[in-house]
């Protein structure tokens, strides 16, 4: 599983971080950082939740 974020669409609302903090982190500079672009399979449910919660639909999962 590969996590792809369209950084132009991202508004740093941090809903992804709340769903999957292992993968997404909004930092003090207000920007989103992807902590792990290829997270392990056991995090899939959390990442799927992040995809669904993202209010700008900026996140996609490949594979």
């Amino acid at each position, binding site marked *: 599983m590969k996590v792809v974020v369209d950084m132009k*669409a991202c*508004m*740093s*609302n*941090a*809903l992804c*971080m*709340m769903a999957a*903090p292992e993968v997404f*982190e*909004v*930092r*003090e500079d*207000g920007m989103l950082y992807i902590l792990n672009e290829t997270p392990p399979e056991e995090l899939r449910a959390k990442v799927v939740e992040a995809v*669904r*919660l993202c*209010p*700008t*639909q900026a996140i996609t999962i490949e594979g």
Partner: protein
Amino acid sequence: MSLRSVVIVGASLAGLAAAHRLRDLAFDGTITIVGEEESPPYQRPPLSKQFLTGDWERPRLDLRIQRQDFDWRLGARATGLNVAERRVTLASGEHVPFDGLVIATGARARAPAGFAGRNGAYTLRTVEDASAIRDRIARGARKAVVVGAGFIGCEVASSLRKLGCDVTVVEMDRLPLLRVLGERLGEVCRTLHEAHGVKLELGIGVDGFAGSDAIEGVRLSDGRVIEAEIVIAGIGVTPNVGWLEDSGLDLQNGVLCDATGMAAENIVAAGDVARWDHPRYGPVRIEHWDSAIGQGEAAAATLISGRERAAAFDMTSFFWSDQYENKMQLVGMPQSPDELRVVEGALDERRFVAVFLRGGRVTGAFLYNSMHRVIAYKAMVDSNAHLEAKTA
């Protein structure tokens, strides 16, 4: 009884979330999604922000539909529900039978008396509403009045300033967002809007509107008239329950559901239309983005599992608002706090966090340009954490 067909009324965020979850849970019967609007489900939060300012265009609003196996009935308005016969009636007269029903018809914007139908008078709920406001400004309207300084009103004011309009906000309360955020944070919002050149008329009501077919101004309760080419009312919403009037369901301020989303046997509700018996907040209608998704998913799970095995939905309320270049987040439901304590930064700084306390326990947190701290404060709200009294 086994579930073979589910009808979802409301082609909305909550409705779509329910549809997706039903398939995730291996439901392989038919899913019919009935929607009053002609468009497939779309995002509403950008309507007062990115879409209103023109930063986003229509295609970006479409919600992702992950499955091909939904039966869409768009442009079809539900007009009735017969619980005993298990069928929904559409405006065309057609009856749609179901084994399970998801009610996700959302809410509609309320309008002040004498407002609707006038040229230049808008509420903001649908993409058509937002497009009409955009068109009007593109055709040269610059004098704008926003009625109501809740989150929608504040966001609209921010977007209209960005578009170069003169903006006056009229609010009955003494401060913007007073009822949600309280005195001190309301003051922060007042300062913010004033700093961006918005004129605020606070603590005053609207008595009527000047002009005939076309709106020309807003008449205040003290007799003054504020000239306007466009007026946008953001004074709250009414849940769309009219079609359920003869159903026998409890419809007082939304469809009453238990803690699992169930309104009646095999009938669940989700999103803005649902008054959910939240384990911590009691029966409450939450109009936020993530609760629409969460409730839609939980309601779907409840339909599949049945009443006995359904789980209570205990999600902490979360909400964000973007105004000017600032990002605000509200975690939890403060519910008559007895203290607001600033725990990071200061109210007059560009970045701060304030927590709402009741009996020394955290019931809510307001983050201002502090998204990076949201997990920590959500954990405090979730656990109703006790905060030591402030040592001076």
